[in-house]
């Protein structure tokens, strides 16, 4: 490159520096786009995929649609789900037949500390009783505190919704 070309390059470089200063100078006076977290929170968390939780059921609005098949437990690669099943005898049984056993969901213990959020449990659930939560602002001091019963959590959520209504 000859001398004139180099000088032209240098002048162009200086011009680009001025453009950069203009950009940051403009942003300096623009309002801030961050949120003061503990005092304010954002509300656009609809796309957030948090921990696994039981969804309120379509057939059973007071609880989950879970049929206690155990697919989620078998599919979990981290082994962080445990089913606790309540076995009941069918009411009003026909006297001729043997009474049927009904399996009901007692508790679904979920250890979030092992969960890798792979979503295998959600994808394989035959009745789509599981889903990702939008529980963004969650922090605990103890690892044991994030091991929870999803049935109890769903019940709390439904109760809270009822009280709000």
């Amino acid at each position, binding site marked *: 490159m000859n001398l004139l070309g180099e000088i032209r390059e*240098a002048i162009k470089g200086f011009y680009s520096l001025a453009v*950069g200063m203009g950009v940051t100078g403009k942003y300096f006076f623009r309002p*801030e786009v961050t949120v003061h977290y503990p005092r304010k929170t954002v509300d656009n968390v609809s796309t957030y995929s948090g921990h696994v939780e039981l969804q309120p059921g379509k057939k059973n609005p007071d609880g989950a649609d879970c049929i206690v098949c155990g697919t989620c437990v078998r599919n979990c690669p981290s082994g962080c789900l445990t089913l606790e099943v309540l076995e009941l005898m069918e009411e009003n049984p026909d006297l001729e037949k043997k009474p049927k056993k009904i399996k009901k969901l007692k508790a679904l213990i979920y250890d979030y500390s092992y969960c890798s959020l792979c979503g295998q449990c959600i994808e394989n659930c035959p009745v789509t009783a599981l889903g990702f939560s939008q529980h963004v602002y969650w922090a605990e001091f103890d690892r044991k505190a994030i091991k929870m019963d999803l049935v109890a959590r769903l019940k709390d959520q439904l109760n809270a919704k009822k009280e709000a209504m």
Partner: protein
Amino acid sequence: MSSLIQFISRLIPLELIHILIGLVAILAFIGVNGLVLVYVERKVAGFIQRRPGPFEVGPWGILQTLADAVKLMGKQLFSPSGGDRLLFWLAPMLAFAPLPLLFMTIPVGKNLVAFDANLGLILILAFSGLNVLALCFAGWGSYNKWSLLGAIRSVSQAVAYEIPMLLAVLAVTLTTGTLQLSAIVDAQGVWPWQWHFLTQPAGFIIYLICAFAETNRAPFDLPEAESELTAGFHTEYSGMGFGLFFLAEYSSMVVVSSVCTVLFLGGWKGPGPEILGFVWFFAKVYGLVLLMMWVRWTFPRVRFDQLLNISWRWLIPLSLFNLLYVAAVVKI
């Protein structure tokens, strides 16, 4: 009362009292200035990146740097094993010690100067060079490859940028015919078009670029490049060892801005009564400091060969031409 002053002045020379008062004021200024500038820097960075900056300690976070200073003072001081303890602890002191001396010769207002040396400019340029020695000691004494690389970079950078800086300063002294800072201010008028940055625009820009490099500020912060050398020469320092380097960096920013103000921007002169000269002076100095912060949060760090190319291939020839231009046009 007057007899008491006479008695004291016979015991201690008045000039010494003058210097002592100035020194105390300067040391107080250095501490407060460090606290304020660190806060301002973080706020500027925040606003440019469209976030609030420090916000939690005190209203708008103004006590944040005070809390940080207390934290730094409370920290344990470590010396790296295998390092040279003497050089290691000499370095932060050597970085900080010349600063009061640098501030002493700077005329803040009319007659408002701690020690009006007739070779003030030489004094400032000579003692600000000690900073390189401090960085060199820090890098060598740390027994750490990153620190040593930072020190090597700082030495070659300082050598490269001292030359165009001196040539730009020389052009100013050529027109004023003096090295006394107050006399250089007196050579310039009250209005902006009587200041040197209009008669010597090239010298002004060259001085500014060199000032960034001399104070190790971004985009020329290679001696402490975080992403390459963790923290460069001050990697191994904890607590106030690091604090003194930090204080020295922010104070030297003010020193180069003050010298730039004196040489090119009319010093304390400005329209209005002379007694308010210090207001003009500080307005100009902190305007330049804000410019340095603005530049830091705009431009990425240059590569090392680019850094040296800017100096050897552009700034030194340009400053030589500037010297010729000043000698030919301005003097005649």
